[in-house]
């Protein structure tokens, strides 16, 4: 039964990846839809970022003093000026570690 679930889940996931690439003709999408598609990264990724910062492992809101919030602010500022993926991630992690290992000890 587990194998069955894995395979069906795999098919469903593969379909989500393949459907728009292989089955849909781009001519079918109007110019308005294409314009809106420019915003896909802006629409999708914050829905992963915000809960990752503002919720804890138990699904409740973190305190305003949570180190993740400040790590994210540092990453945001560094990212904004550097426009570098590696600098954004590293600055966020380092400032987060600095807070949890030094400031909160």
């Amino acid at each position, binding site marked *: 039964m587990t194998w069955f679930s*894995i395979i069906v889940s795999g098919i469903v996931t593969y379909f989500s990846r393949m459907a728009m*690439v292989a089955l849909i003709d781009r001519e079918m999408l109007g110019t308005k839809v294409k314009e809106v598609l420019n915003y896909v990264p802006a629409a999708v990724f914050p829905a992963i970022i915000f809960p990752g910062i503002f919720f804890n492992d138990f699904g409740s809101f973190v305190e305003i003093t949570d180190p993740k919030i400040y790590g994210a602010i540092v990453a945001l500022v560094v990212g904004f000026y550097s426009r570098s993926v590696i600098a954004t991630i590293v600055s966020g992690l380092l400032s987060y570690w600095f807070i949890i290992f030094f400031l909160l000890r």
Partner: protein
Amino acid sequence: MLSKSKIFFKGIVAVLPHMLSVIPFGIITGAIGIELGFDPILVYATSLIIFGGASQIIFMQLLSGGASSLVAITSVGVINSRHLLYGAVLSEYLEKLSFIKKLLISYFIVDQGFAESNKYIKQNKNLSNPHYYVLGTGVTLWFCWQLSTISGIILGSFIPEELGLKFAIPLTFLAIIVNDLKKLDHVFVMLVSGFASLILFNAPFKSYIILSPIVALIAAFIMLRFKK
């Protein structure tokens, strides 16, 4: 003109920074599967067949918690439905490929790979073979994901939990969108999506992951109407 292999290589390089979150996440995913009591082969099968981090963890958690197959499959489908949006964007760059190649490359469409490809191809409009970039990002992420989940399965979660590496996941996605922070229209859409996700977080089947982008895209649509 860039050769195919150079474009492929550029794709590989573009996703390397994301390994800071992908590899720990993969190790954790493999280790969680074993902790939940699944057979190692089954845990690995989720990486190979489903190939989608968060959805694999939730899939295994649901099944081990006694949820029905239908609930587990529905959750995976809901979480991974965001790929439909990636596909809709990427289809512009993959249009010229044969049907078979489209079927093959689709397997490698992943969050970070999509984001980096979209960024690069938008900046280099007259690229002759943009799909090699997509493939470079996707294949790299695929290999690292397989290897890291396998190490998590074999070695357990050997990365100390105190490091809080889960936090690398929001950071890697933040790194993806910082480029667009100077565009107010994009920032508006990001805020709509972010706040929607906080409000919808407890919606069933983790559906906030697709509902928030839909709300944000509707907001984008309305915004575009007013701009004209």
